[in-house]
């Protein structure tokens, strides 16, 4: 008799927590509200999948554009717009000289060469270079500018803007796009006193040719 009671006690002690655990596991059954759990799990898996795409090799790759400052053994010291970077060279690194993209060795990298260093960030400040392109010519030449000003003179082929510090003459071409924040407008609707934002190309003498003009304020509103 005593044995039976003990067996019963043992069975109940094991079965009740087991049942509770089974109920607490989402995959056990589809009770009301479980569909929400399934939806949440699917969302979570989708997010993880998208995060996986973001962390694909190319998305983790970075490139620095700057100038070679030094070459020390297997490290190229370069300086980009944010400061100095150490680029570690390895057997996996491809070194090229532009133009022509001829393959070179690290001995052919010269101080003051312009450089694009592509690779992967490593531990600490180490950047593992995978593809380095060097050139004696600048790799980035910006001959474009933008600005804001008020029209002081208008002619068929140019306009003069008063900017914060000077009078700026901007040439116009048939390709110049003239617009307002809501759409394209005719050049004939521009008037002295209008405020404009412009993008323009520069020649070697700093003459500007407008590519886009956007009127931001008409003279009637400005006055």
């Amino acid at each position: 008799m005593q044995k039976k009671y003990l067996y019963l006690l043992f069975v109940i002690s094991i079965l009740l927590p087991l049942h509770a655990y089974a109920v607490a596991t989402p995959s056990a059954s589809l009770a009301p509200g479980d569909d929400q759990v399934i939806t949440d799990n699917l969302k979570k898996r989708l997010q993880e999948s998208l995060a996986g795409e973001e962390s694909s090799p190319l998305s983790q790759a970075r490139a620095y554009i700057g100038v070679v400052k030094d070459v020390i053994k297997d490290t190229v010291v370069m300086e980009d717009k944010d400061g100095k970077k150490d680029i570690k060279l390895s057997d996996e690194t491809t070194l090229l000289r532009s133009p022509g993209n001829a393959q070179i060795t690290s001995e052919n990298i010269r101080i003051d060469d312009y450089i694009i260093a592509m690779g992967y960030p490593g531990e600490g400040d180490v950047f593992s270079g995978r593809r380095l392109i060097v050139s004696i010519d600048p790799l980035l030449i910006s001959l474009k500018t933008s600005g804001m000003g008020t029209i002081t003179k208008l002619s068929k082929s140019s306009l003069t803007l008063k900017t914060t510090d000077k009078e700026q003459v901007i040439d116009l071409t048939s390709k110049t796009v003239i617009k307002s924040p809501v759409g394209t407008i005719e050049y004939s609707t521009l008037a002295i006193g209008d405020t404009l934002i412009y993008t323009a190309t520069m020649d070697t003498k700093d003459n500007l040719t407008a590519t886009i003009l956007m009127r931001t304020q008409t003279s009637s509103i400005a006055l």
Partner: protein
Amino acid sequence: MKVKKEATIAVIIGLVLALVVTGTILRARRALQAIKLPDTSILKKKPVSSINPKTNELYLELTTPDNLVVSEPQLTLTGKTLPGTYIAILGEKGEYLIVPSDIGNFSQDVVLVKGANAIKVSIYQNDGKKIEKTLNVVYTTAQL
């Protein structure tokens, strides 16, 4: 008789213990379901620069990372600035003049040239104030 009594007490104690364990598991389940985890997606996209937009000062946050390597000839540049401003984007192959949305968000597809691309983003305010940032992007089809 004495043995029977002791066995009954043991069974009752066992039942109470089993009920306590069962109740604890069920309560823990409900408590875990009630927890709302914080949205970590905003932590992943670290802006290039950040100035508190609430101060109403001219600011520019670029959500597109700097020094990217891409294998497509086009990049979607996204960011946030003060509403009511004007945005000039100078790419290597094209220029763009746009305005941000009512809440200051902006997005522009920028055409890239092969190799190094410097994309200059300038924000203009009606009072003539201006801020700008430059993103470097390299477009390559080579395997890294």
